């Protein structure tokens, strides 16, 4: 519906509307308001028309695949159709380069516990409806997405990092973190694609949007252990290790020129169980073996 409106708007321009209703003005005002609210609620629930999804190429594109409903949902029963169709396609609507990029970013910035949280955040924001439904409609949200997924990754990373450290970030600290992360993201990019996170302004725009839409009031953020720290604990070590190995091919395609052995050597200090993980702030544990 909104796609049709946008197309029509482009052809029609902005016409002047002269209202001459066929009933008394007071009656008409009431009727208009009544229909406006009744149909607005309905319009939000109806699913958007499917649009052709841009294919993600092996050397990734900087744009986002549009988060439209997929053709397969025609098989779902009527009750399921009323649900947001995006719920069924969370990982597939997020470009494939995102996870390796997140891993690379978090590794360079020494936050090995962050990647799954950052990915959950990015996926949620790209595919789920926001907790706050006022104002920003689907068209405006799509425009926001076209900004830069990399900027979104940086914004979500900063939020995750702050939460994991359990600290408040001041404006200066935020700017420093943002610029560091932006630099790393640009460094991780394939050299053949110069476009990308050109400036930090898009990160700020995403931050504002995350605040406005209260995107942090969702499971992905609330499940992050506040003050849990940036390091991976013993339990997470094995899962982190195996999933890194699984994604080795994706990382190779994304990070041009990096050696596999380099990556594993760099990861070892974080993933070795026992070292540093037995010592907590409250109790000093002495190993006697």
């Amino acid at each position, binding site marked *: *519906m909104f796609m049709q409106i946008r197309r029509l*708007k482009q*052809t029609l321009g902005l016409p002047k*509307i*002269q209202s*001459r209703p066929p*009933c008394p003005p007071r*009656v008409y005002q009431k009727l208009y308001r009544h*229909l406006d609210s009744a149909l607005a609620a*309905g319009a939000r629930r109806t699913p958007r028309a499917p649009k052709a999804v841009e294919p993600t190429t092996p050397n990734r594109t900087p744009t986002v695949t549009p988060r439209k409903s997929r053709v397969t949902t025609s098989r779902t029963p009527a009750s399921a159709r009323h649900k947001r169709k995006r719920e069924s396609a969370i990982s597939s609507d997020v470009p494939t380069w995102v996870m390796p990029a997140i891993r690379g970013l978090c590794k360079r910035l020494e936050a090995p516990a962050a990647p799954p949280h950052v990915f959950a955040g990015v996926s949620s924001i790209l595919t789920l409806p926001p907790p706050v439904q006022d104002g920003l409609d689907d068209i405006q949200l799509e425009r926001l997405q076209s900004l830069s997924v990399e900027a979104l990754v940086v914004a979500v990373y900063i939020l995750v990092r702050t939460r994991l450290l359990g600290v408040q970030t001041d404006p200066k600290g935020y700017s420093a973190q943002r610029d560091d992360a932006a630099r790393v993201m640009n460094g991780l990019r394939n050299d053949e694609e110069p476009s990308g996170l050109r400036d930090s302004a898009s990160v700020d725009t995403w931050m504002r949007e995350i605040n406005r839409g209260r995107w942090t009031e969702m499971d992905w953020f609330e499940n992050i252990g506040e003050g849990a720290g940036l390091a991976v604990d013993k339990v997470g070590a094995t899962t982190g290790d195996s999933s890194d190995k699984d994604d080795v091919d994706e990382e190779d395609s994304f990070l041009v020129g990096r050696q596999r052995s380099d990556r594993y050597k760099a990861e070892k200090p974080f993933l070795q169980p026992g070292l540093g993980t037995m010592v907590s702030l409250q109790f000093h544990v002495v190993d006697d073996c």
Partner: protein
Amino acid sequence: MDRAVAQALNSLIPELNDPVPKELVELAVSLLAQSRNKASSLKPEEEIARTYACAHLTCERLVMSRL
């Protein structure tokens, strides 16, 4: 029904060229059909204005939506 909608649209946007764009009419008709679903019982004086109000809503939403 379509003609009533088209007439309402013409009245709302005098600058619009005859005939009214088909897509605009279809959009307004769709909104009208939805309104019959969502707001099925209206007072007689309101019912008279239903078509006009839906056409009006269609135009306003077109103007209000920003790229």
